[in-house]
């Protein structure tokens, strides 16, 4: 392991390595905190997605029932004709919200549910069941917009979580153990050198004493 880092066993190198271990440890601890915070955010978004999906599916089912009723009462062709005349614009403001530096979309939609007159088709030639179906689909649209916003947030958070986890693992299982191994190698080598020196001095002292 120590050879992989190619360190020379000197006191200077030991000091440098100690600093590097400190920095790596600090980075690891902070990134782990970030990872924990991201997990909290991710699970919160998942919980909201589940709620939003249930609501949206329920609303879509209500809307489809209303549309089926409309087909039965008004007729399929007439309903499709009216749909072509309907206005399709929707005002919304798309900005970004930042969760720990990760840009997640924030969609602010005004009132999706429109007035009968604002829908763009003639109210004289259509039935109230068509208005009912339109209203239900407008409600569903609002829920679907909210769901898509949450889905994008979940993807962004998952990507960042994956990146952070990879870095934490690289520090925890590769860099820090290698640095610690190199540190241990230098300390052992320095100890060994000290012992060699001590023995050498003792030997010299013995030789000098013999000469005297």
């Amino acid at each position, binding site marked *: 392991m120590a050879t992989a880092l190619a360190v020379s066993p000197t006191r200077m190198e030991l000091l440098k390595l100690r600093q590097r271990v400190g*920095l790596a440890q*600090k980075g690891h*601890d*902070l990134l782990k*905190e*970030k990872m924990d915070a991201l997990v909290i955010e991710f699970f919160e978004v998942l919980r909201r997605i589940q709620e939003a999906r249930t609501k949206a599916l329920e609303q879509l089912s209500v809307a489809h029932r209303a549309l089926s009723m409309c087909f039965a009462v008004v007729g399929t062709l007439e309903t499709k004709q009216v749909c072509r005349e309907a206005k399709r614009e929707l005002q919304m403001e798309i900005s*970004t919200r930042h969760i720990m*530096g990760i840009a997640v979309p924030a969609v602010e939609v005004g009132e999706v549910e429109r007035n009968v007159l604002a829908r763009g088709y003639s109210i004289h030639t259509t039935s109230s069941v068509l208005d009912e179906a339109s209203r239900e689909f407008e409600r569903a649209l609002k829920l679907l917009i909210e769901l898509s916003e949450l889905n994008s947030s979940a993807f962004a958070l998952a990507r960042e979580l994956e990146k952070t986890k990879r870095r934490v693992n690289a520090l925890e299982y590769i860099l820090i153990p290698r640095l610690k191994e190199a540190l241990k190698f230098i300390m052992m080598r320095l100890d060994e050198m000290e012992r060699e020196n001590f023995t050498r001095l003792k030997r010299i002292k013995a030789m000098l004493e013999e000469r005297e």
Partner: protein
Amino acid sequence: MSADRIIKFELSKLNVHLPVRRLSLREALSSPKPQVVARDGSVHTFKREELEFLAGLLPEADRDKLQLPILIALEPKLGRGTARISGEAEVKVVRQVLKKKPAAGELLIYRPEVAILRRKLPTTTQYLFSW
């Protein structure tokens, strides 16, 4: 890039989402678009309903003291998952949100409480990583 430089780069990026200047609750309430500019130049907008919720928790006089966003400081030296809330008004608000007994001084909260706090105040709270 060496491993050390990568670590330093990662550490320097940890707090770029924090605002250059925090807003008081009163300023945020009076602003037509309550938002702060982060260190990376991005804009963080507060939800009005959250601001009104916070205003309901604090007496009128304390609205200048509450600085937004409320910072949830994550410090590894406190132990994994432990966060610190500083500031008199901030602590008061967080204690009320988490239904804790009122007390003076800093407040330490733990991971489940952080999750509750973030759920209730997603735009008016932010994480701060300190060491």
